[in-house]
């Protein structure tokens, strides 16, 4: 299963490396979203800085929709889906591979967005490192991002396969995906707020229970994907 997953993930990442669709189109889109948020919320009043965690994760969700669409459009072209079924690879492995490649691309996106947020919204200049160590803050940020990304990638891979090849896929995917991942949005935003102290009275340790929620979400949807992906693939 894991060998199959590595094959699929390697294939997807290789396609991305050669076509650079995510780098050339999805990342710039994410940055555009960040700039639009600044237009929507008056940037001079500190609103942006307070709202940074939420805006960051909204931008991640929107770009995740694009990434998922991209990830499964490459299977639709040239009947890649049939190829996958003919390949004899374990469906659970295919799921893990697709989700893994998606997760890696999302993590890269999040890193870029993080830098963008820090520069454009001035979030990093918060006096956060005074009472809590830099290490504790980054540990919370990184584990939040990691688990949220796994949850997003697992859900995305499931729904991506489900909507792939349909005439209505571009409109169906966001409708299914965004409400489902709303717990990730809530959990990741609250955890980031705790880490960055952007909310009123947020303490660092308050973020960790949310990380637990994200871990639960990720675990459940990875498990469901492993079980259900076969049913999605075996049909035409």
């Amino acid at each position: 299963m894991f060998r199959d997953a590595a094959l699929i993930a390697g294939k997807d990442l290789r396609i991305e490396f050669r076509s650079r669709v995510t780098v050339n189109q999805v990342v710039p889109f994410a940055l555009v979203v960040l700039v639009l948020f600044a237009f929507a919320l008056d940037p001079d009043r500190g609103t942006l800085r307070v709202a940074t965690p939420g805006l960051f994760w909204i931008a991640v969700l929107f770009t995740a929709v694009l990434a998922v669409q991209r990830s499964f459009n490459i299977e639709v072209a040239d009947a890649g889906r049939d190829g996958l079924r003919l390949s004899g690879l374990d469906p659970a492995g295919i799921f893990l591979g697709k989700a893994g490649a998606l997760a890696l691309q999302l993590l890269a996106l999040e890193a870029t967005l993080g830098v963008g947020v820090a520069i454009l919204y001035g979030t990093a200049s918060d006096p956060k490192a005074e009472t809590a160590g830099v290490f504790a803050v980054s540990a919370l940020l990184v584990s939040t991002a990691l688990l949220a990304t796994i949850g997003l990638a697992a859900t995305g891979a499931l729904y991506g396969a489900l909507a792939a090849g349909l005439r209505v896929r571009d409109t169906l995917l966001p409708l299914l995906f965004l409400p489902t991942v709303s717990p990730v949005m809530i959990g990741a935003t609250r955890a980031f707020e705790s880490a960055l102290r952007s909310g009123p009275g947020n303490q660092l340790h308050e973020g960790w229970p949310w990380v637990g929620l994200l871990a639960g979400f990720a675990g459940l949807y990875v498990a469901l994907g492993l079980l259900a992906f076969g049913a999605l693939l075996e049909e035409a």
Partner: protein
Amino acid sequence: MKPMARGRVGTGTPATRVLGVVTLAAIAVLGLFALVLSPADELQGDSVRLLYVHVPAASLAYLSFAMSAMASALYLWPRTRRPGWDRLAGVTAEIGVLFTGIVLITGMLWGKVSWGAYWTWDARLTSTALLFVLYVGYLAVRRMPAAVDVRAKRSAVVGLVAIIDVPIVHWAVDWWQGQHPQSTILHLHPKISGLMAFSLFLGFVAGLLSFAWLLMHRYRLAVMEDALEAQWLDLAIEDRQREGTVPAAGAAAR
């Protein structure tokens, strides 16, 4: 479309007709008790009457979604895969969305009277709204243009994803916004009068009857839809032949 008229017309049988009449009677009695006979609440005033619909509708929505999820799981499990489970999953989800809509509307009206706003970002409201959207998405999947078994399988997966999401959403939102003040309202009133309790009970009876009636009719309609989807082309050709514009069966096969 006319072709179905050749088979059985309509979805009613004597049994469901009786059920329908009983349901209507129950709704009428509920209206009498909820609006006229039961007293207004000391604190909530007349707005309490909304709860005789609101609370049963919420329970029935959960019942529908639970049934939908079970039917989805039974369809996905290869040994129990029958088209009937797929239909049941879709039908109950539709009814669940209907009841969730009723819950949201009556809840918003209640909120306007009691809290002074149609909407607050309270935990229960938010998670109910998300539940509504999740299942609207599910219904969109059911309407997707694809082969019947492809659609059935994909819908079943979405049904499971949705039901797993419900407790997580509930937990996350609850944690985010703190406890819902409304959930304890009936417990705050241990001296809820007998007439009010009876009205609420009637609400459950009328709700369950409507649920059963809707379920039976909608399920039969789903059977007819599937039959129509399977043979609409044959039926259409038959129609054309009867009009005499197309040569008879043997020639048409060319």
